[in-house]
């Protein structure tokens, strides 16, 4: 991915971007929202990333820069990794049945990194923006449907890696409810 830097603006892959400190920028923003809204912050981040990355994928597909299907999803996850969000790798994928498993060990997923860097103790998984981004990309490359991404392991709460599962929204919601 090419990065173009001009005075006062920066573009990566044709999209304007800016640099934000993960721990003191993104996570501080998250903490401020959490202070105001509580636990719902996780869903708000998820929904925002879902819409953003689904739209990003739809645009890339419409412009012919990306294809639908497994190859397109793999390329999208690779682009997410190359954008500095973490060392994400697809461990399993079956777009036909609607299932994917994605892992991130090193470099640590950016949200978990922020928590570890700040020394905030966390009891739950924190990579909610990433969950939304992966679900948005998966949904668009799968051609629609009701899919959910859950985080089954997270370095921020002491697990060895961050691990994500994407699948049927109803089945994964039931899994979450059962704990």
């Amino acid at each position: 991915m090419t990065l173009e830097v001009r005075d006062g603006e920066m573009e990566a892959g044709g999209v304007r971007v800016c640099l934000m400190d993960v721990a003191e920028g993104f996570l501080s923003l998250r903490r401020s929202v959490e202070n105001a809204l509580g636990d719902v912050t996780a869903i708000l981040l998820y929904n925002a990333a879902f819409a953003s990355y689904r739209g990003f994928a739809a645009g890339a597909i419409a412009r012919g820069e990306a294809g639908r299907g497994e190859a397109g999803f793999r390329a999208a996850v690779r682009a997410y990794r190359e954008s500095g969000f973490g060392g994400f790798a697809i461990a399993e994928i079956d777009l036909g049945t609607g299932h994917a498993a994605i892992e991130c060990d090193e470099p640590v997923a950016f949200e978990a990194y922020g928590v570890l860097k700040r020394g905030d103790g966390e009891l739950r998984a924190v990579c909610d923006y990433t969950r939304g981004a992966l679900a948005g990309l998966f949904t668009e490359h799968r051609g629609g449907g009701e899919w959910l991404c859950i985080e089954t392991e997270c370095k921020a709460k002491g697990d060895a890696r961050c691990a994500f599962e994407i699948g049927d929204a109803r089945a994964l919601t039931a899994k979450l409810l059962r704990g």
Partner: protein
Amino acid sequence: MAVATSNPVDLLQGLVDRLQDVPGVEGCVVARRDGLVIAHNLPAHADAKRMSAMAAVIVNASLNATLELERGVYQLTIVQSSVGKIVCAHAGMEAIFAAIVSEGANLGLILLRLESIARQVEEVLEYI
């Protein structure tokens, strides 16, 4: 209710669907306390994810205000608009629900039905 062996989402969807029979209820959503959609029968123009997140914010803020101002035990929140109401409440410790109610509907009857549904939602989530 065979809660332990059934998919809890299907059970809760069944409860939500029962509200369709109540005159004046245009749609309803049940969500986890953090805003994750569990089941809904919202009209096509309503986004279940956004509705669930907003309902969670409304319930959490209402709950906090009730505690902060020492107003006893939180029960529900009614948002009144020019074309109807949105009724939000919690269903036990784990879930919340929100119903879109049309103007002129029998609110007393609807609240009774919602209260009953909330108890059943709580029961399902308690025994899964």
